[in-house]
Structures are given as structure tokens and as C-alpha cells.
């Protein structure tokens, strides 16, 4: 570390840290609420607005607030905050503030965090954007993908060895394990050994691993952790680079296969008020939406998979037939009740309007 790198990385220390280190966290909450307001009201040039929010999020969370938006850190912080309830309320608030707001916003406005705010997602999206500019066209199944992965893997090993020679590695550096697994999975998916869909279930094991370490009070730093704390954390930085490189080959591969927070968001979106659904009666099977969806949440047969959708609205905006709609599903019953109602409608021959509010996958 360069000792001249002064002062603290967080720019607004003085005016914000006044209430037991918690007012600055209020800033992060207000920022997220502002994001949600923008998201729910934005119609024109929505993708441009989304990218602006992503950039603002990177700047805001990297340079202003202390909250960790890391996909491991939010789970760990949330659990730690829960353990402090009843003893140290201000600290409990400090640790719980951000995870709680993200979860609440998911329930109210859909999993917008993943598509609009998450820095790990933004970095991957940037990687996809670069790939589309540098290597246009579909790469899947080509040798280019394997070569790219090989270059990423070799570079990573070289960097990791360099890091290893200069410092001692601990459990906290285990994000490197996740990075290695990600490269392996991308290799096997590209080679056709693994299928994309079942491999996504590994996210659950990511959650289990992080929860177990968190309750054991063991810290594993998140991929983007180095940017939040400006601490010497080469493992986190290297993992972030590998995630970006992997996304170059399989778009948002971290979100698809390993992100524990993404799994939680997907699980919570079952009860989310807002959903993006495809109206089959308007769909012309042009597959523009499937090509545009980075996370692969849409397929021809099932429409939008709610547990994979990141609410980026790309499909909504790209569809020329307005086949995708954002619907309010609260108040129409559980998915099972809606499915039963649909069946009753079909059985009786009456007009069924449930399709407007129910994703195809659940019908």
C-alpha cells in the first residue's frame, strides 16, 4: 500500500459520520429509495437511465458510504446485525440497514437491485458490452470462448501465484475459490458437459457456504470488497477481474451460477409485488428478448423465469410487440391459487384474464 494514499477513501467522512456511524448508512438507504423511484417512473430511454443509475451506484457506494454491497458481505452483515438486535441497536441498524432495504425493495418493486444497483452485476454487464463491441456475434460453442477462458485462467493463476508469494492467504481470501469454480463451470458449460439451467442450482450451495461461515464469524471478502474498503485486498480484486473475464464468455455467469445474493433475490421474487410476464398472445417468437437477456431468464417455452429475472427491463424495452408487461401480482392470490383459477376458467370455457398477471412458467 502506498502510504501517501491519503486521506481515507471515503470522501464525505466529516459531514456524514455524526450519529454513531449510522447516518452515513441512512445515505445509502435514501440512495436506494431514490433508485426505486427512478426505476418505477422511468419510461423513456429506460436503459440509458438504468446505466446511469448503475454508474451512480458504483460511485456512491465505492466512495461515499461504508455499507458493503458485496454479495457475500450483505448476507454476513445481515446475520450479524440480527445477532445484535437487543443489545447494540445502533450497530444492529448499521449492519442491517442495507440488506433490509434491498430485501424490502425486492418485495415491493421486484429484484431491481440485481439489475440496477449491484456493482458485481454492473461490472459483468460492462464486460458483456465490451465483448459485443470487440467480438460481435455469437461466441457460444466456438473455440474463441475456450481460448478466452484459457487466457483468463492462465492470467489468473499467474496473478494468484504472484499474490501468494507476497502475502499469506487466509479464509478471507476464499473468494478465489469461487473464482476458480466459476472458470471451471464456464469451461464445462461451453464444452457442453454441463447444462446451463441445472448448474444455476449451485447458487444455493453458495448461500449455504456463506451462511455457515458467517455464523461461524469467519469473513470471506466479496468480489468487489476491495473497492468498498480500499484495504489491501488483492484476492477480492483478482476475483472481480476473473468474474468480469468469465462474463466475457458466458454473460453474467457469476449471477447465473454462483451468486448467493442473487439466489436470495430470486427466491424472494416469488413473493414480489411486481413481475415481468410475457403475453403469449402477442409474442411473435422473434427471440429478440432471449438474445437481449444477459442472465438467460427467458426461454421460448416458459417465458420469464421469475427466480432468474433481474428486472433490468431489457426484454420489455426491446420487444417491438409489447409482449412483456410489468404486472402487480399482489392481491390476485398465490401462484398456486392463480393456476387453479386459470384451470377453472379453461374448464368452464369463460374468458381467462389471469395470464396478464401470471408468468407463463407458473401457468
Amino acid at each position: 500500500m502506498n502510504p501517501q494514499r491519503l486521506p481515507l477513501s471515503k470522501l464525505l467522512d466529516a459531514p456524514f459520520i455524526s450519529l454513531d456511524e449510522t447516518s452515513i448508512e441512512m445515505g445509502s438507504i435514501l440512495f436506494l429509495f431514490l433508485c426505486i423511484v427512478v426505476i418505477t417512473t422511468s419510461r423513456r430511454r429506460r436503459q440509458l437511465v438504468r446505466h446511469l443509475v448503475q454508474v451512480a451506484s458504483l460511485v456512491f457506494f465505492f466512495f461515499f458510504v461504508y455499507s458493503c454491497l458485496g454479495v457475500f458481505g450483505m448476507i454476513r452483515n445481515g446475520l450479524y446485525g440480527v445477532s445484535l438486535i437487543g443489545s447494540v441497536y445502533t450497530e444492529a441498524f448499521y449492519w442491517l440497514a442495507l440488506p433490509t432495504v434491498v430485501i424490502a425493495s425486492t418485495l415491493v418493486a421486484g429484484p431491481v437491485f440485481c439489475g440496477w444497483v449491484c456493482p458485481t452485476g454492473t461490472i459483468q454487464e460492462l464486460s458483456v458490452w465490451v465483448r459485443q463491441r470487440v467480438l460481435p456475434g455469437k461466441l457460444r460453442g466456438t473455440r474463441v470462448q475456450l481460448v478466452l477462458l484459457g487466457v483468463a485462467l492462465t492470467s489468473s493463476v499467474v496473478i494468484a501465484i504472484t499474490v501468494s508469494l507476497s502475502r499469506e492467504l487466509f479464509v478471507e481470501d476464499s473468494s478465489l475459490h469461487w473464482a476458480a469454480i466459476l472458470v471451471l463451470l464456464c469451461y464445462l458449460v461451453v464444452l457442453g458437459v454441463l447444462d446451463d439451467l441445472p448448474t444455476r442450482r449451485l447458487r444455493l450451495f453458495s448461500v449455504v457456504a456463506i451462511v455457515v461461515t458467517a455464523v461461524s464469524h469467519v469473513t470471506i471478502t466479496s468480489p468487489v470488497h476491495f473497492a468498498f474498503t480500499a484495504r489491501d485486498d488483492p484476492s477480492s480484486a483478482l476475483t472481480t477481474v476473473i468474474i468480469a473475464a468469465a462474463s466475457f464468455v458466458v454473460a453474467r455467469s457469476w449471477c447465473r451460477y454462483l451468486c448467493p445474493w442473487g439466489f436470495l433475490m430470486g427466491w424472494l421474487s416469488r413473493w414480489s409485488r411486481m413481475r415481468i410476464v410475457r403475453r403469449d398472445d402477442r409474442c411473435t417468437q422473434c427471440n429478440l428478448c432471449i438474445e437481449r437477456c444477459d442472465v438467460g431468464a427467458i426461454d421460448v417455452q416458459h417465458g420469464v423465469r421469475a427466480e432468474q429475472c433481474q428486472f433490468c427491463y431489457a426484454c420489455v424495452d426491446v420487444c417491438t410487440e409489447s409482449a412483456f408487461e410489468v404486472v402487480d401480482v399482489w392481491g390476485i392470490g398465490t401462484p398456486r391459487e392463480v393456476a387453479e383459477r386459470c384451470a377453472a376458467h379453461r374448464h368452464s370455457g369463460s374468458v381467462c384474464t389471469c395470464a396478464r398477471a401470471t408468468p407463463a412458467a407458473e401457468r
Partner: protein
Amino acid sequence: MSRHDTRNSASIHLALSTEAQPAAWEFSGSGRAWSYQPGSGVWSSPSVASVGGRALLFVGSYDHDVYALDAATGEQRWQFTTGGRVEATPIVWYDGERTWVYVASRDRQVYALDAEVGRQQWTQSVVAFRPTLTEADLPSPCVGRVGDIAALFVPYWVADRSLPASQQEAGVLALEATTGRRLWSVSLGDNRLTAVLCAQAVGRPQVFVGSANGNLYALAADDGRILWQRTELDAVRGVPSLIVGAGGPRVVFSSKSGVVRSVDAESGAQQWSYRAGDWVIGSVVGTRVAGREAVLIGSYDHSLHALDLTTGRSLWRSDVGGAIYSAPALLAGDDGPVAVVAAWDHFLYGIDVSSGARRWRRFAGRPQWDVVGLEHSDWASPVTARIGGTWMVYHGSYDGVLRGWPLALLAGGASDDRRTNTRFWLSFPLVLVGVGGLALALTRRHRRAHDASTADDE
């Protein structure tokens, strides 16, 4: 004092004729340090004193015990078990007849022990027992006077988890040093406190204490009145230092925001401030640098800073290999005074106080779990003692071992770097094979289900 004097030197001269020449030793306590819960420290900072003609080292431990060791050999003299972790430095006080050791434990109790044999003399609870109370945070107390009575000043923080009584409470409690009788107590909000400093400032006894919400309090030792207080932007973690210089007595303290501040001990008025490049969580230490009064601070900016006591200007800064989490301890080596600090790169460093040049470094033990999590705990700072003409450096490491080194060994020996990443890299094939196999199993199951449904459709 938790750091031996009001200047926080963490250094003591014991003119003893020892039976054995001080030598390097290691002590592992109950041997259960491997099971310590990440998030809590293993050892308290030790204190060293002459007891019954012997140099004894007193240290609290994660395993609920307080140990008295022969400071020259590391041999255990006695141990005393409390009801909770002992993270506060045991305080030694000689009343003219007997030497006492005061131990503040997380079981909310203060124990007064006979320093020679470790027998309990009295115990006092900082708050009345309730079953819903959590463990308390009791930093190191100090011994001063309330009027004519020798008193022990105990900072505390307790919390009650029950919903009706839900509260957090911090304060300072004054107990009679020889009986444990309560003299007074003062409430200081609901944030954790630092160790207290007892000092005779401006002709009257005072008690100084910092808090996690950035306050520094000056209390009247007689009745606990708040004489003045200052508020910083971030937590005050280190015990304040009182230094009597040319401008009269002054309190120099630091906060986690990296700011070091010198204030008038009587009024609390600022004299100067200095901002380090990153957090400062250790105590400020008063010393002399090239004939001038100065203070030393270790910072997370990987540097030990020497500041002029009068102006606050930087005299030198010395870079080490990691963020400095400890307070410096001073010793007078053959080549001049040396400050000993501990850093997150797991080394102890000896820094020449006159010039800031590095004299030596020594590997001090690797963490049990991770380094990032270490930041959440208060870890032991080194202390030094001169025993029979030999300087010793003591440090309770986060690897579970308390070590004593003669200065000659540190200054003359090669650095003992035991870094190894073998286990870390060996875990990779295991993880990759495990997760890869799991992914393959999931894919095969998915394909079988898909084939079955296709066959059904046909």
C-alpha cells in the same frame, strides 16, 4: 494504569536480581486458544510488575482465566478463573503493604486479587444482576484517589436484551480499592468506552475516558462530574495520554477517523490536531525525540508517526509492512530508545525513536482464521520491561501464544517469517472436484428428467 504510566509508555524498569537470566519463552494458557471465537481477542495486553521480589507478568485470556507468569522465564505462578473473557489489562497496585491485581471480566464483575498468590480479596458487580443482561464490555480500570481514599475507576458497558428493559448503558464506576465499596458512578450514554486514565492534572485528580461515539470525557475523580468533553467524528478507541510539557498538562488522544488531538487538560481546549492517513485505534504514547517532547501513534496507514508535542508537526514517519493496530511500547536499547509496534502483517517492529529507522522486525504469529475479521476486535499491544538489566518484549498474539523475547534476540536475530500458503492452495483441487462433481450430478439428473418427459410426450 493499563499502560503503566500516564504517558502510556507500556514500559517498566524492575531493578531486580533475578534467579534466572531472562530468556525467550512461550505460553499457551489453557491450550484452548484454537477454539476461541473469531471476533474476540485471545489475550489482553499484559502488565508487568515487581511482586514479592519477582517480576511477574499478568495477562487476561479468552479462556476466562487471568494468569500470573514469571516475566523472566514464562513459568506460571498462578491462575484465577472468572466467569467471562478477560480482555482488559489486569491492573497492578501496591498499597504499601500488599500488591493487588484488579481484573475486569466480561462477566460484569471486577475482581481484586492478591498479586502474590492470586487469591480473591473482593469482587464487585458493575450492575445488579438480571438474567437478561448480556456480557459486559469492561475495559481496563485504573487506580486513583477519591478524596483520601484509594479508588479503582472502572469503565463499563452493559446491555439488556429483554424487550421491556431493553437498554444499553455505559459509565464509570468508582470503587474503594481495598474493599470494593461503591463510591460513585456516572452514566456516560450508551456507547462502549475505552480504558480509563487516572491522572493528577492541574492539581486535582481527574479521570479521562473515551467512547465509541467519539466523545472524550474528563471526569472529576472526587465525584464523577463531567468537567469537560469533546466530540470527535469517529470512535475513540485508545486510552488517552496525559503529558506534562512546556505548556502545562495536556491530554493527547486519537480517534478512529485518524485524527490525533492535543487538548488542554484543564479546559479541553484544542492546542493542535494532526490527521494520519487512516484509522488510529491504538493509544497515543508520550516520549522524547531528539531532545524534544513528542508523541508516537501507530496508524492503519502502515506508519508509525512521531509528532512534536508542542506544535503537532510531524517529526518523522516510519513505514512498516501492514496497518498498525497496537499502541507503541517503549524501551531504551543500547543504541537509543526504541518503539515496539504490532502490525496486521503479523510482525512486531522495533523502530528507532530518534530517527524513525527500522531496527528489527519479528514474526509474531499468524491469525487463526482471517485478517479482515481481526479488525472487529481489540488485540493485545506489546509491553516492555527491564528485568535485572535485560530488556524483555511481551506480546500476546492472535495465534493463541503469549511470547516473551529478550531484546538482544529481537535485535540480533534474523526475521522469522513463517509464511506459507500450502494449505490454501491444496484446498483448491478438493473444492473444484467437489463442486464440479455436484454440477455434473445436477446436469445428469436434469437430462434424465428431460429425457423421461420427452419419452412421455412421445
